[in-house]
């Protein structure tokens, strides 16, 4: 009875490039298996937070259990594990894939293979998953399914003969996908009587239950009341609830080898239930944890400071609350002469950083100033010490530095061939090293470059999109550290160094960056009674300079009886504006200055 049950389980995930239809297909599968009526369904039901729905991206994973009666008459349990599609969250993707036996690869019938298609396929292959190609959006007039099938076979090497041709939007041929899952995805293995070995592939914090862990049981059984141990942290907990998610969460009496579900165990913080960790029986632990667990490492840092009128403690509380549900977010207090007391925060990438910024704004209503995103640099001091710094102000003086290293990434850029020249120019500008170029089809290539991470996070994505009219796609992975001629670029306003604007850049880029910041500041700082020099400097050497001209006239020519109220109101507005300024020496700098100069605006 149990064996047959396990025979009828299918654990799978859907992988795809952004906008190829992953979420829509997930909706259709849920709909088709009758979990919710179309009326009850909210579009993209697996995207939980409003923010994600707005941006059309999934960040948090969920696992959903579908019940499907196949054409062979048997009942099957299909565990659909949702995955984030963005490069920032590769680790989460890999862990959720580790919980599966198969992956549905969705490819847009008109776009074909794109950067993240490949990236996700590689992750799936890493986990030895059975990959089922599905060609989506065949309803579009530009669809060319046969060509795309050929592309997949050539580039990825998967047989597409039986690949379902569907339109998730129109609900066309969804049944074919379900049949393919049943027929092609292998059932899970494992012994329910062996010592417990369960993978945490996601967790989130619930106010009432504490942390809810999504688990895939590989060996053994997990029941309420059991004492479990987290193998990476050695922490022990008692299981309170065991359940599965269908249209809502339902409790079950156990989860066995092969099952996917969730458990709660009065766990206070997601840091205690880490993605990728192995859960085992505290009284009868398994010998080896599951492979692949990694401590998440932030790649991108920025300073987050309360804006004028905002309270430091409110920011701290908000970050703490966000951290409860985000094991990758790190932060610690820091101070800036220009901005006061704030935090240095670490993120998995730019997207992660933007999401946190938006959540601070949207969910907590906080007005914060963020400094330029930066990466972790390694410094070998002449006294032998090795430092890792992310805050430019922590850089030791040049005289004490023997050499510096910066992180570089392996980048894959997929593009139509007509933009190859523009991309080569861009990557060259960004200190990229060309590795190779492959043809995906006659008119599309994938270019491989090694690029410094600090160039990738500064203006690269925008520039790539604009030079290729949006057609290019980018994926990258941290490769390692290389020696680099890096310098600390400082910005001085009226002769005073403003640490909030300091940057670590490659020496070749210093002038360009310095000039660009100086120019932006000239635009955004209002004129004062005196001329204000804005300078960019490396050490004591000024490398760029702009000047804000002194204000010559600020007076109302006429002020008679009918003008007095209006004049006073104008002055009152001016006074309000001054309140939102930060005083830097004798210069009043509006908050907008920090935002304009420093905010990385990926959405442009």
């Amino acid at each position, binding site marked *: 009875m149990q064996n047959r049950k396990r025979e009828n389980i299918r654990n799978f995930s859907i992988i795809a490039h952004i906008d190829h239809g992953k979420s829509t297909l997930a909706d259709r599968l849920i709909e088709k298996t009758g979990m919710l009526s179309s009326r009850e369904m909210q579009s993209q039901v697996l995207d939980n937070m409003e923010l994600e729905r707005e941006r059309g991206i999934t960040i948090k994973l969920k696992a959903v259990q579908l019940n499907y009666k196949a054409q062979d008459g048997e009942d099957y349990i299909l565990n659909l594990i949702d995955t984030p599609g963005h490069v920032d969250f590769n680790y989460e993707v890999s862990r959720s894939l580790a919980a599966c036996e198969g992956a549905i690869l969705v490819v847009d019938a008109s776009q074909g293979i794109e950067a993240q298609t490949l990236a996700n396929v590689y992750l799936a292959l890493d986990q030895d998953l059975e990959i089922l190609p599905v060609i989506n959006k065949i309803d579009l007039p530009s669809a060319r399914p046969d060509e795309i099938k050929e592309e997949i076979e050539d580039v990825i090497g998967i047989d597409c003969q039986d690949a379902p041709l569907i339109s998730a939007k129109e609900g066309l041929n969804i049944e074919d996908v379900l049949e393919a899952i049943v027929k092609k995805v292998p059932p899970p293995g494992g012994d329910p009587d062996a010592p417990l070995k369960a993978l945490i592939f996601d967790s989130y914090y619930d106010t009432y239950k504490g942390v809810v862990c999504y688990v895939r049981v590989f060996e053994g059984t997990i029941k309420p009341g059991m004492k479990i141990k987290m193998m990476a942290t050695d922490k022990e907990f008692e299981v309170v609830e065991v359940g599965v998610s269908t249209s809502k969460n339902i409790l079950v009496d156990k989860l066995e080898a092969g099952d996917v579900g969730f458990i709660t165990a009065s766990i206070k913080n997601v840091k205690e239930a880490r993605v990728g960790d192995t859960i085992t029986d505290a009284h009868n632990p398994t010998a080896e944890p599951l492979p692949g667990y990694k401590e998440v490492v932030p790649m991108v840092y920025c300073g987050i400071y309360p804006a004028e009128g905002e309270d430091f403690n409110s920011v701290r509380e908000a970050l703490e609350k966000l951290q409860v549900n985000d094991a990758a977010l790190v932060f610690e207090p820091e101070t800036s002469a220009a901005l006061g007391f704030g935090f240095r925060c670490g993120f998995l990438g730019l997207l992660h950083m933007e999401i946190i910024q938006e959540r601070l704004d949207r969910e907590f209503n906080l007005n914060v100033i963020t400094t330029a995103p930066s990466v972790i640099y390694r410094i070998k001091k002449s006294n032998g010490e090795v430092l890792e710094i992310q805050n430019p102000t922590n850089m030791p003086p040049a005289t004490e530095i023997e050499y510096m290293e910066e992180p570089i990434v392996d980048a894959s850029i997929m593009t139509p061939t007509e933009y190859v020249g523009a991309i080569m120019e861009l990557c060259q500008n960004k200190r990229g090293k060309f590795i190779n170029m492959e043809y995906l089809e006659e008119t599309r290539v994938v270019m491989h470059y090694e690029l410094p991470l600090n160039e990738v996070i500064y203006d690269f994505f925008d520039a790539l999109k604009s030079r290729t009219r949006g057609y290019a796609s980018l994926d990258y992975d941290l490769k390692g550290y290389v020696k680099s001629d890096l310098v600390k670029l400082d910005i001085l306003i009226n002769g005073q160094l403003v640490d909030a604007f300091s940057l670590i850049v490659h020496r070749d880029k210093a002038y360009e960056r310095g000039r660009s910041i100086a120019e932006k500041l000239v635009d955004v700082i209002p004129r004062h*009674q005196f001329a204000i020099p804005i300078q960019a400097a490396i050490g004591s050497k000024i490398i760029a300079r702009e000047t804000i001209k002194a204000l*010559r006239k600020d*007076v109302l020519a006429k002020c008679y*009886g009918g003008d*007095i109220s209006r004049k006073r109101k104008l002055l009152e507005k001016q006074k309000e504006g001054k309140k939102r300024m930060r005083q830097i020496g004798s210069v009043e700098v509006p908050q907008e200055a920090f935002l304009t100069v420093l905010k990385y605006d990926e959405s442009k």
Partner: protein
Amino acid sequence: MEDISIYIHIPFCTSKCHYCDFASFPGKFHLVEDYIKSLIIELDSYKDRLKNYKVRTIFIGGGTPSAIDGKYIYRILEHIQKNFNIHRQMEVSLEANPKTLDGEKLKIYREAGINRISLGLQTLNDGILKKLGRSHDKKDFFHSYDLLEAVGFENINVDLIFNLPDQTLEDGIKDVTSLVQLGIKHISYYSLIIEPNTPIYNWYHDGKIKLLDEDDERRLYHQVRAYLREKGYNHYEISNFAYNGYECKHNLVYWKVKPYIGLGLASHSYFNNRRFSNTTDLKEYIQTLSSNSLPIVEEEYIDKKLEIAEYCILGLRLIRGIDKREFTDRFKFNIKDIYGEIIEKHKKNGLVVEDERTLRLSDKGLDLANLVEVDFLPD
């Protein structure tokens, strides 16, 4: 008896100048009769409240007060004389356009009690006058001036605007020297203000007209200021110059934050610690008064803090500045008690000068007055 000042608005014009954003319009002369009737009704509504006041100054502005028949002006002024207390040396000013004056009208004005005329010249450059949409040329101006002298008006102000489109520095100065040569006793010298919703605003933003750059604009103002001072004019307010004794008493009421009543379309008042103003809609103005209601549309209460702030902000427009003793007499404490730090800050910046009696803007401060004034607002 306390003094009160009265402003009367006559919104009628023969044409609309291209830079004007006042409540004024051409082509509505058929409504003048009704309008004057409304003015009288509005005047009468103040009879009670002004029982214990003496009218010290009257200013009839517009629009073009001189564009309507002289009899209407006479009627209004007569009504005031008959129904209100009048100061023996009441100053009565009227704004006039050089093209609308004639001997007859001027005689009526004299009989009505007008003793000061303000001529809207703007510039002596005919080309620029045309561009501005002015209805007169420089000949009309000289002609009116002669007329005024002939009829016996000697308290005359001339309005000039500088930094006009196509105006050079030399042009700007020539306008002033010509007036000085004529012996004009009061000159108002305004920098052009480009107001939204005017033709000149669109021309400027479309790049069709060019103005002086900031440095030249200030240079012109400074040169003219120095020249007029040298010629014996009392520079008594940012934009106003006069021979001693010929300063405009009515306008001084504004800058000294003394009470005034505004009558007519869109006019403003300051009375009993309240600033209030009338509708800008002509039909509404006439209708409201004919149904015995007041056409007030906006009103705000000026508390002590605001009054002090306004006193300082407006007082600094006077070149002589704020009289510290007058401040203490009026508000019962020292100006340094609340503004001590601000005063020191601006003294250090070279924008404000303090001497024993007064606190005033320096020459540089006159260019950057707003920077100083904003600090006098209450928090």
